[in-house]
């Protein structure tokens, strides 16, 4: 697993949670599997210099806070609908993916990002022929796990990445 790529993905995810919702995500080295039951999964596909998918899983309680913060709700009115939570997670993933691709593929490279979608559970992550998991990142978001996976549809994806030392 590429450590530099992992650092970039972790940093962009942290900046996105902070920038969108004033939430702070701290890198975690915990490699244990996330629990499907307590997580909400979302994925987004992209095409361009290389194609692939980013998957995001976040525990339910931080998603409620993420949504309330994005909507600018006060503490006493944090009852957010499942539809708004799904929208918040999709938009968060969209921003993570949109910032990740130029960081790893180069700022002069054009990528098309598809509409993010919410998945019922981890087993619904679509199959990607020839796709390889190139990195994963784990954050602690409000003391709950948050995990990202980057898949790229290339046999030798690292040859396509452009990022400085």
């Amino acid at each position, binding site marked *: 697993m590429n450590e530099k790529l992992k650092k970039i993905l972790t940093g962009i995810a942290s*900046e*996105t949670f902070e*920038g*969108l919702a004033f939430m702070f995500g701290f890198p975690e080295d915990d490699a244990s599997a996330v629990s499907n039951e307590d997580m909400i999964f979302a994925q987004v596909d992209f095409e361009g210099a290389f194609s692939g998918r980013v998957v995001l899983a976040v525990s339910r309680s931080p998603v409620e806070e993420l*949504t309330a913060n*994005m*909507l*600018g709700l006060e503490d006493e009115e944090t009852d957010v609908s499942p539809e*708004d939570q799904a*929208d*918040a997670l*999709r*938009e968060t993933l*969209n*921003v993570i*993916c*949109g*910032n990740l*691709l*130029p*960081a790893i593929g180069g*700022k*002069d*490279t*054009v*990528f*098309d*990002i598809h*509409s993010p979608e919410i998945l019922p559970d981890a087993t619904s992550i679509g199959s990607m022929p020839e796709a390889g998991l190139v990195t994963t990142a784990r954050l602690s978001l409000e003391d709950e796990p948050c995990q990202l996976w980057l898949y790229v549809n290339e046999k030798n994806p690292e040859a396509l990445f452009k990022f400085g030392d």
Partner: protein
Amino acid sequence: MAINVLIVDDSKIMRTMILKTLQMTGIPMGEIFQAGNGREGLEALERNWIDLAIVDINMPVMNGEEMIDHMRGNPEMQDMPVVVVSTEGSETRIARLEEKGVVFVHKPFEAETIRDTILDLLKLEADDE
């Protein structure tokens, strides 16, 4: 003078974030219209007097770049100020958008960036009171 604004983004939550940001800028707001894609955005522009459009790029049905192309090809909309608020990171695509006379703001954005961009675009004075 209050300005009428159109917000075009397929995410309702992002439209709400932009709306709340506009309300915090101190810029006098008139009516604020919302659309979920470029097609709906063009329909809103045809039906209403709008001073400024804030447009996302990645949207279903009709994306933001196609919407801007339609606007620039329509004499009644071709000079309308447009702010693109998007995650787009390709300098190539941003340059192409800027050639169409739009100003680009990157997501996630800060309220001050939106305020300063609109003030500059509409040549308005800041009201910090």
